[in-house]
């Protein structure tokens, strides 16, 4: 009898695991991972103090960020970042917006190699090695790009590659967006 019930437990195990998995997946449905947590929209960028990629001794803080600007989350480990990088180079050439890079969970040597390889479109590159700032921003992965307005408030978050179309239709129109407009709309 002992053996019988032990067996039955074993045979039920896959089903139990599957039910757990299904519940988990169900909880993930509808929560769009590409969507910004609503409480962050209209908020000031989080307080931080980080080192710069090119000057490891220098410190950059949230006060040094001057909106309106884009904050691009990237890492040399992220294949899609290689794709969007040439577009940021183009955008930087046009000099229409300040672009800050947030080097996310990366090694300094690899990050420098990436920039030497593909060019530097960023006004400053903030090093977020432990990912703490990324967590405060609610970063899910790389690449992601935040739009902040002249008050340094987050007005939009884009997950995935930035290209001409994304810039023209999603990012550019929001640069001038007032925080008031956002709260009115909500």
């Amino acid at each position, binding site marked *: 009898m002992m053996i019988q019930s032990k067996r039955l437990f074993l*045979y039920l195990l*896959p089903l139990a695991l599957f039910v757990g998995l299904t519940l988990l997946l169900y909880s993930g449905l509808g929560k769009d*991972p590409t969507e910004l947590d609503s409480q962050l929209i209209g908020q000031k960028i989080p307080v931080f103090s980080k080192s710069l990629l090119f000057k490891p001794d220098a410190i950059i803080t949230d006060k040094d960020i001057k909106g309106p600007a884009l904050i691009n989350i990237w890492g040399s480990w992220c*294949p899609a970042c290689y794709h969007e990088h040439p577009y940021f180079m183009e955008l930087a050439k046009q000099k229409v917006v300040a672009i800050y890079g947030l080097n996310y969970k990366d090694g300094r040597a690899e990050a420098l190699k990436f920039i030497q*390889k*593909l060019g530097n479109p960023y006004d400053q590159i903030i090093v977020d090695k432990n990912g703490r700032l990324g967590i405060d921003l609610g970063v899910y992965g790389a690449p992601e790009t935040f739009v902040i307005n002249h008050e340094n408030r987050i007005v939009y978050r884009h997950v995935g590659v930035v290209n001409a*179309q994304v810039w023209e239709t999603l990012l550019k129109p929001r640069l001038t967006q007032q925080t008031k407009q956002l709260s009115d709309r909500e």
Partner: protein
Amino acid sequence: MIPEIGNLALSFALAIALIQFILPLVGIYANRWRWILIAGPATMVQFFFVFIAFLSLSWSFYVDDFSVQFVALHSYRSLPVAYKIAATWGGHEGALLLWIFMLSFWSLAVALFSNQLPSMTRARVLSILGGLAVGFLSFILFTSNPFDRILPDFPLDGRDLNPLLQDPGMVIHPPMLYMGYVGFSVAFAFAITALMEGRIDSLWARWVRPWTLAAWIFLTAGVALGSWWAYYELGWGGWWFWDPVENASFMPWLIGTSLLHSLAATEKRGVFKAWTVLLAIAAFSFSLLGTFLVRSGVLTSVHAFANDPVRGTYILAFLGVVVGSSLTLFAARASSVSVSGWFDWLSKELLLLLNNLLLTVAAVMILIGTLFPIFAEAFDWGKISVGPPYFNLIFTTLMTPLVFLVGLGPMVNWRQYSMAQLGRKSLVAAIVALSIGLLVTFFETQHVAMDQFKIFLGVFLSVWLTSLALSDLLTKSRGKSTAKFRKLSASYYGMHLAHIGLAFTVLGVVLTSHLSIEKNLRVGVNQQVSVAGYQFKFEGVSDFNGSNFDGIKGKFIVTNDGDFVAELQPEKRRYHASGQWMTEAAIDPALSRDIYVALGEQLPHSQDWAVRIYVKPFVRCIWFGALLMALGGTLAMSDKRYRKKVAAKFSPKTKSSSNSENISNNSAA
């Protein structure tokens, strides 16, 4: 008109699939012979309608019917014809139609080649496949119809296929991969049938093995093609990214491989029956789960398919019904089919069990890594994901013992084997592998100790595996009598070929990962640079035009100490419809190394270009190994015992009848 025909054909296919699903099952229950017999014809008619639907969509692409929304979103007038056809599966709706087309194709194959099965078994298998078709056909008809029109104001030109997908890889990779994915539905249907009938024996395993092998061959080729495509088109020289969608195709492959080996034990020795059935259910469940992950929007990925919670909910519900009911059936019935056979701690059974354990654990760990963002979200750890470091660590740790054991598996006998004999037989291989491994490590001294250890381990394992396979082939084919030689089956040779393929893949992965040289240089016109012993002379750039893009082409002459090696022409293309720039690397391939050149940016105020030059040793071995695995699978499938008239042998009570045969014969895969 044509899209309406397609739409109608899909609806008919759904109706027929309902008949194919319900009537035979009811017929078996109610003892109505005619209802049972309808399974075969219904399958064929269902295939016919799905085929019509698929042709209609391809035709709409071919004639640029931009009033069809799906065509307008994924095609472009001046797109080359091959890519127009391939664009049929270039988006969610079309890819789903390809899925369904493959499913009905496999069902048709079962209907055509299963005459030797008992008619009840055949009807059940076809009915279960019909049930799966019902699920997917209603999914496409109710949530993602590819034939939806934009009327009356349809666009004059389409939005173009994503430039990343405009590549020969797009024409062949998705069909291969889907053939593999969907192919596991046959093994699944057989597993459910076996649970319903309460009968799993070596005969059952012999029916399932060729179907599993066929699906596995396609999946192997599909995954390898995907990796190769990523390497030259998207990868910047990388060949695997542990992207959720890559993982979604790799997990079924791991489980499928596990299933193949467990089926061998079930066929030859009648053991691991419940486990085999569970794996057959799991392989297809992982395929379904992959579909869910790609299409539901719960994970972000570079394979950005349309994310839609309604679709996600539907697939999850479908997944829940199919897998949930299968596992319930398994829990209820598995104890009745399970028989414990006797085997010693050193035996082929035990090695196969270890193989299964390692492969399954690897698949589960990859699943955990892939779903980690969802776990983290559910348990409020914030939005975090695990990256390649996690996957690389876990995977290497699990694969190292696996590859070591793969070498021993074929030598060891069923039931029991002596340790002394094993040591004697593998001694030569161990010495050869150790010395070659040390030699290679000795000559690659510019690396840090950890890298050197990994290179040593990789070389050791692949030489170990290859030499054991070769020595086993030699001793067994040279055997004392010629009669024994003739006994060696196609599946035995197929197994060794596939194992040697694995050795090549391991070697390629390790050497490429640790010995690649990647340089990013500023190069002026007519300037020569030197990378890894090769000289690259840059002869400038020229403009050129493609049908739907224009671009710049660079020209490099590669020489090695004055000897001409290759002329490489990397490109940068700007696609008209999207304005997107794409970099097309130029590659000179060889088995021992790839030379990879890609154009970066033109440097401001000069004629100089930023250029990436990679020399990647043995990267081809990765895909060559996969090719050998697929060929090995094909060879094993050609084994004539799968085509033997089994009907004559068939008797309802064959429990563990297989013990008498094949014990001395080591020809299991």
